[in-house]
């Protein structure tokens, strides 16, 4: 399950896709994931999926995507079976279609998230005039993930050192055993949030309503071309999908 989520985690790199303006990539993900609702023909959807693959290759993130797909296989199979049942075994291609939709959705957004830093996403949020505190909450959450996971491990070690056995017991007992782990973690993080707030105020957060920004997003000619290509191809595929070309 965790491995599947890694398909949405930023992967450091310097490919042409990495260098694209995040806004273009967001549009790409939105466009291509909405395209899968245009038709329920498995062949068309297979084409739609295939179109995404070059993006992953150019972005040099194809391996991570494959890992994600491998980890997602149980889900994919589950969706397929569920759909077969739902359609009462009549239309196997329908089930394939629904399954493909799921995969395309994940893939289109993987292209975005694998090649875009959380900071760039935050910058987009700022450009969209979302109030800065939300953007800040977003970046800070990401910044603290490694710290939190390290502290969680320390807490687990400390409680195990006092004899806590997490592996033993039935479901109810095991859940109760997590209390000595969750409580220190939650209390510690709540306390930390106060310290963070103090430190932020001490560094002038709130000084002026007109906050400036160190980084800027430059929309270059390459981005404009990429945007154009995305829109044109999306429209083209949309029209193609609607035409009665697809057998099943």
């Amino acid at each position: 399950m965790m491995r599947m989520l890694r398909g949405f985690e930023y992967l450091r790199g310097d490919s042409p896709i990495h260098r694209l303006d995040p806004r273009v990539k967001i549009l790409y993900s939105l466009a291509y994931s909405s395209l899968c609702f245009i038709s329920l023909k498995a062949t068309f959807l297979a084409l739609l999926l295939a179109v995404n693959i070059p993006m992953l290759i150019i972005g040099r993130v194809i391996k991570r995507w494959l890992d994600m797909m491998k980890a997602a296989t149980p889900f994919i199979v589950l969706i397929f079976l569920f759909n077969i049942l739902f359609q009462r075994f009549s239309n196997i291609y329908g089930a394939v279609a629904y399954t493909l939709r799921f995969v395309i959705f994940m893939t289109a957004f993987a292209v975005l998230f694998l090649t875009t830093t959380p900071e760039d996403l935050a910058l987009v949020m700022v450009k969209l005039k979302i109030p800065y505190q939300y953007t800040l909450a977003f970046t800070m959450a990401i910044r603290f993930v490694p710290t939190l996971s390290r502290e969680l491990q320390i807490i687990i070690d400390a409680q195990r050192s006092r004899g806590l056995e997490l592996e033993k017991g039935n479901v109810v007992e095991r859940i109760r055993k997590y209390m000595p782990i969750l409580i220190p973690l939650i209390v510690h993080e709540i306390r930390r949030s106060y310290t963070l707030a103090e430190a932020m105020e001490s560094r002038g957060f709130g000084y002026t309503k007109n906050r400036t920004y160190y980084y800027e997003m430059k929309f270059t000619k390459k981005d404009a071309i990429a945007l154009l290509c995305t829109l044109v191809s999306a429209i083209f595929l949309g029209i193609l999908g609607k035409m009665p070309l697809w057998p099943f």
Partner: protein
Amino acid sequence: MPRRDIIEVRDLWYRYPEAKEWALKGINLTIKEGELVAIMGENGAGKTTLVKHFNGILKPHKGYVKVCGLDTKEHTVAELARYVGLVFQNPDHQIFASTVLEETMFALKNFGWDLERAEKRAKEILKEMGLLDYIDTSPFSLSGGEKKRLTIASVLVYDPEILVLDEPTVGQDYGQKRRLAKIIERINSLGKTIIVVTHDVEFVAEYIDHVIVMSGGRIIAEGEVTRILCDENIMKRARLLSPQLGIVVKNLEDYIDFKGNFLRLPIFVENLKRWLENDENAKRI
């Protein structure tokens, strides 16, 4: 009656998951029952990684660790924890109960003690630590120093043979450190083995005699505190600073032959008095 080896580490190699470097590189170490020893080094030298092997939280990749004769690879943490009490650095990483009494009894409950006996024992240890007044209060409301004593109490409560303290002096004022040293001395005098992991050179110089120095995942020195903490090369490699009295002794080594544990103030002063007044320990140049 020779003392037995209570901790045996042979050719221990350990690497954290997803790490490229080895955190511990071929550690060889023997600690005898009843010893009071400090494991020193800068942050990242591997001290905490090493002591986590003593109660089985970490298992060796190569080599072995034997505690009270038990091979840690063949026992769970819960089993080993009965022999080794490991007190972590930050009390906030373990305090969770609604009362101080409950917090102290946690380990005993995990070990299957019956409640009556557990409560009695917990109250005993809290009294020794000067925390009896707080039995029914929330541990979260205690001061920093009190929380520290509570975490030690919650481990001492089940009377482990070996007590390991991970950076117990961080954030403590001098008076608190003195109190901590008294607790350590008292427990050690009862025959318990105590290991203090720290980078606090002054604390070690003042209260501990035997020292193991680590750097880059290896043990680079072991022995008497007077020899090791005054050795420039060892201190430099370990990225530690010699204690003040040690620096003085080094700078006066051409003039005075210091005797005894001269890192302890009274002995240091005694050595100097003798030199000043009647050249007793002067070096013949």
